[in-house]
C-alpha cells in the first residue's frame, strides 16, 4: 500500500515546487545525484542531465512537454557496465520507466541505488513543436500544466501521447501525482516502495490522502483509450495487406533511425548492421531477372517486420521511432497496433513488473495448444 505525502506548492508554480523538492533531496543527502531534464541555455529545449549541484536545479524543467530521448536509454548507458554505487534519483515519465523495466529484464540496465521518481504525464510535443512552444512561452512547464488544468485540447501532443493508456507510472519508488491533484496548491507524492518511503520520510513532508486520484486517472485513461481505438481502426484500414504496406513503407530510406531511437532495440550488433542479409552481386541480378526489377537497397519491409518480431512484445509505445523518421513513416502506429495484438496473447504489459518474465524467454507447457495442430 502506497503511503502519500503532500508537497505544498509556493507561489512560484509547479515547476518551482518540483525544483525545490529535488534540491531538498540533494541538500538533505537523501540522494547524491538527480537525473532530470534541464533547460538548455537557449531555452529552446530541455535535455536529461545528471545533476549533483543543487543550484543547477534552478533550470530543471521536468514538466516541459517534450521527450527528446528515452530516459531508459540514458540509464542503460549509465548502468550497463557497472551498477551505481551512489544513490541517484531519476525523474522520468511513465513510458520511460516502462522501457527501463524492459531493459532491466534484458540485462541492459541495473536499478541498484536508483530511486525512480515517476511523474504523471499529460503528454509531450515533438522536439520541433516544443522549440516553437518555448519561443512563444517563457515558462513552458507551468504554461503547459495551466493549459491542462483549463481542460484545453492540445493538438500539439504527439500521437503516441494522445493514445497512451498509461499516463501514470506503473512502477516507481516515488510517484509525483499530478492527475487529480490541485497542483497549483499542492502536489501528491506517493511512496510506493520502502526505498521511496525512506526518501519521502527524509523530506519531512506532511501526510496526505490520495483522494480523487483514481477517478481522475480513470477518466483520462478512458478518453485516451477511446482515441487509441480510433487510431487503431484507422491504422488497420491504412496498412492491412501487402499493397498498402509497401506504399506505407515506400518513403523508408533504410536509415534505421527508428531502431536507433527505440529504447527496446538494444542489440549491440544488430543483424541489419551485419552481412547476414548481404549477397553476391549475381544473386541480386538473379532476383531482378526473376521479378523484372527489384527495389534497391533490398529488404525495406523485411527490416520492419523483423524488428516487429524482435521487440514488439516489449514495445511501450513511446513513439520515438516515429519522431526519428526523416520521412514520417507512421512506424509508431504500426508497431503500437501490432503490439496491441501480440502482448495480450501472453497477458503481458511491458514495464508492469521487473519480476515478470519476458514472453519470449519463458513458456508454459499448457498454453497455445493450437499451434502445431491447426
Amino acid at each position, binding site marked *: 500500500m502506497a503511503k502519500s505525502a503532500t508537497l505544498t506548492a509556493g507561489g512560484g508554480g509547479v515547476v518551482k515546487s518540483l525544483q525545490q523538492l529535488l534540491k531538498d533531496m540533494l541538500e538533505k543527502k537523501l540522494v547524491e545525484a538527480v537525473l532530470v531534464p534541464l533547460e538548455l541555455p537557449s531555452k529552446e529545449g530541455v535535455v536529461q542531465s545528471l545533476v549533483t549541484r543543487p543550484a543547477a536545479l534552478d533550470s530543471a524543467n521536468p514538466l516541459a512537454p517534450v521527450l527528446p530521448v528515452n530516459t531508459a536509454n540514458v540509464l542503460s548507458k549509465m548502468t550497463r557496465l557497472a551498477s551505481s554505487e551512489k544513490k541517484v534519483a531519476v525523474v522520468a515519465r511513465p513510458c520511460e520507466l516502462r522501457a527501463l523495466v524492459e531493459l532491466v529484464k534484458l540485462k541492459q540496465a541495473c536499478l541498484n541505488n536508483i530511486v525512480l521518481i515517476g511523474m504523471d504525464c499529460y503528454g509531450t510535443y515533438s522536439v520541433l513543436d516544443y522549440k516553437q512552444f518555448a519561443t512563444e512561452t517563457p515558462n513552458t512547464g507551468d504554461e503547459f500544466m495551466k493549459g491542462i488544468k483549463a481542460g484545453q485540447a492540445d493538438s500539439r501532443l504527439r500521437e503516441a501521447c494522445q493514445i497512451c493508456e498509461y499516463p501514470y507510472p506503473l512502477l516507481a519508488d516515488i510517484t509525483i501525482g499530478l492527475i487529480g491533484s490541485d497542483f497549483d496548491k499542492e502536489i501528491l507524492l506517493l511512496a510506493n516502495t520502502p526505498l521511496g518511503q525512506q526518501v519521502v520520510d527524509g523530506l519531512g513532508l506532511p501526510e496526505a490522502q490520495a483522494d480523487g486520484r483514481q477517478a481522475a486517472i480513470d477518466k483520462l485513461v478512458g478518453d485516451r483509450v477511446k482515441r487509441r481505438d480510433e487510431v487503431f481502426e484507422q491504422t488497420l484500414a491504412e496498412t492491412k495487406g501487402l499493397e*498498402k504496406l509497401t506504399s506505407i513503407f515506400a518513403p523508408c530510406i533504410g536509415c534505421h533511425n527508428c531502431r536507433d531511437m527505440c529504447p527496446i532495440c538494444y542489440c549491440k550488433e544488430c543483424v541489419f548492421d551485419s552481412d547476414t542479409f548481404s549477397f553476391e552481386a549475381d544473386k541480386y541480378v538473379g532476383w531482378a531477372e*526473376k*521479378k523484372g526489377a527489384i527495389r534497391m537497397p533490398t529488404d525495406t519491409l523485411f527490416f520492419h*517486420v*523483423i524488428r*516487429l*518480431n524482435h521487440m514488439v*512484445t516489449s514495445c511501450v509505445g513511446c513513439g520515438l521511432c516515429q519522431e526519428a523518421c526523416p520521412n514520417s513513416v507512421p512506424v509508431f502506429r504500426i508497431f503500437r497496433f501490432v503490439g496491441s*495484438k501480440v502482448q495480450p496473447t501472453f497477458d503481458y504489459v511491458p514495464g508492469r513488473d521487473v519480476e515478470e518474465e519476458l514472453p519470449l524467454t519463458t513458456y508454459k507447457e499448457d498454453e497455445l495448444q493450437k499451434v502445431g495442430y491447426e
Partner: protein
Amino acid sequence: MSDNNGFEPTIVGYFCNWCTYAGADLAGSSRLQYPHNVRGIRVMCSSSVDPMYLLRALFGGADGVILCGCEPGDCHYISGNYKARRRMMVLKTVLETLGLEGDRLWMRWIGAPDGPKFAKTMNEFTELIREKGPNPLGTAWNV
C-alpha cells in the same frame, strides 16, 4: 489434385534434427512419397531458428514455410519447442495483423517414428500452397 495453372510451389522446411529429420528419414526408408517441392533444412532444434529466417524464406519468395519440431514434452533440449511455439505465435500474429498471409507459415510436431505423419503433412501443406498460388512477396518488386 488441383493444378492452379501448373503452379508448382517452392516450400522451405526447417526440420529438427532429433525428431522431424529422423521422421523424414523414416518416411524415405519406408518409401513413402512426399512432394519434391519441399526443400528440407536440418536444424538442431525448432527453437534454434530465429523467426527472421522463416521470414527470410517468405520474403525471398518461398511460397510456403514449415517449421517442424518434437512433440510438446519430447524436446531433446527439454523446452526448445515450447519456446519455438511462443515465437511462432508472435510471428503469426504479426503477419496476420499486417495482412501478410500467415497461413503460408506452418508449425508441426513430427516425431522420429512419425514417418507416415511426415509424408502426410508435407503432402497436405504442398497441396494447400499449390491451391493458394504463388506468394505475392515473391513477385512484388518493390517490397
